[in-house]
Structures are given as C-alpha cells and as structure tokens.
C-alpha cells in the first residue's frame, strides 16, 4: 500500500466580479475539486472579487445563475478558511455587514503571511 502523502496547503485567490466573466466559477470549481482530494484549502476574495460576496444577489434578470448560492458550497466541501482582504472592501465602500456570510477579514500583512505559508497559490 502506498504511503498517503501529507496534505498540501492550496490558496485560491478570486479577483473578478461575479457575472462579467467566468473566472469566479472556475476558481470555485478548482477549489472544490482540491478539497475533495483532502488538501488544505484557503479561499481569498480580493480586488473586484469581493463583489461576489454581496448579499441579495439575484441573477434571474440577466439569464445567469446567482453566484452567491454556489459560494455556500465552500462550507459543504469543508473549506472553512474563507477570507476577504479588508482593503478591497474598504476601497469599494462595502462593509462586512453587507456580505452573504461571515468571513475572516485580512490585513495586507495577513495576506503576505498567507501566501508565504501556502504550498500552492492559484490566482484567478
């Protein structure tokens, strides 16, 4: 029997707004697949990616699926390290109360340590 490999730490950074392109969905899909393989997954929203987390989204009118519903699958797949860069929220005039669910707020120095402590960083 092969010896099981030690889980690696993957950090996914989602930086696009929810409906303008399909990067947010690709990033989410890759993170969920990684979690299935029992790796340690961090999920970070920064830049325009923080718009994905705004509450009360309803994409019926633009013939798309509402992304907020899909983001709730992060928890179902055991991804509990869901983070937002504080600076990206502030510069877009969004408060943490405007978000879909509670997330960890990261300072810029927290971000540096997050990247430093990750084995792989996927930036989408």
């Amino acid at each position, binding site marked *: 029997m092969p010896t099981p490999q030690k889980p690696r730490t993957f950090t996914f950074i989602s930086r696009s707004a929810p*409906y303008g392109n399909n990067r947010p969905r690709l990033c989410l899909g890759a993170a969920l697949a990684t979690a299935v393989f029992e790796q340690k997954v961090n999920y970070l929203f920064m830049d325009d990616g923080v*718009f994905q987390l705004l509450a009360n989204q309803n994409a019926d*009118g633009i013939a798309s699926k509402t992304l907020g519903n899909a983001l709730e699958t992060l928890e179902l797949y055991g991804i509990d390290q869901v983070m937002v860069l504080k600076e990206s929220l502030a510069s877009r005039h969004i408060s943490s109360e405007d978000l879909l669910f509670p997330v960890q707020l990261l300072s810029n120095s927290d971000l540096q340590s997050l990247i430093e402590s990750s084995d792989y960083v996927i930036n989408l």
Partner: protein
Amino acid sequence: MSTLHTLNKAPSAQLLASCIKTLCKGDGLIFIEDGVYHVLEAALLESIPAKVAVYALREDISARGLTDKCDESVELVGYRHFVELCVEHEKIVSWF
C-alpha cells in the same frame, strides 16, 4: 447631436475618467454589466457634469445585490427604457 454612452466595466478599470472628458450637455450615460458597480462610488459620480443624465440597468443592479446601495444621482431603468434611450440619442459610444 446628443450621445448615449454605455460603460460596462467596474470602477477598477478606471474608464469613467476618460468617459467624463467626452461628455457634452444633454448626453446620457448608462452603466451596464459590471459598470453598475459605479453606483457605489458617490465621489466619482459627483464628477459627472450636471447636465448629463445618469442611468443604470436595473437587471444588472439586482443581479449584483446593489438595489439598496444605489447612489441617488443614478436613475434605474429596465431593458425597455434602455432601448428607448438608444433610439432617442443620435449615436452611442461604448466604454469597455
């Protein structure tokens, strides 16, 4: 000759500054797609000349959860009104 300007990228693309330089009295400016995130930018919106009517597409606003966060200076319009605006103005300039 009045012009309707459409803008479809988020403020991070910094298109509005270029667009504003081209706006004339009587023009219209409509935010569509990711452009609707401009409704959060009160200070930026103030730099738009007062004689320009500013709109945002309602369907894109509600998709993105912005219905209650819209700046008062922006009028929400549906697809039908968007078509009317396209017809009322002599030409359309797209910012993308």
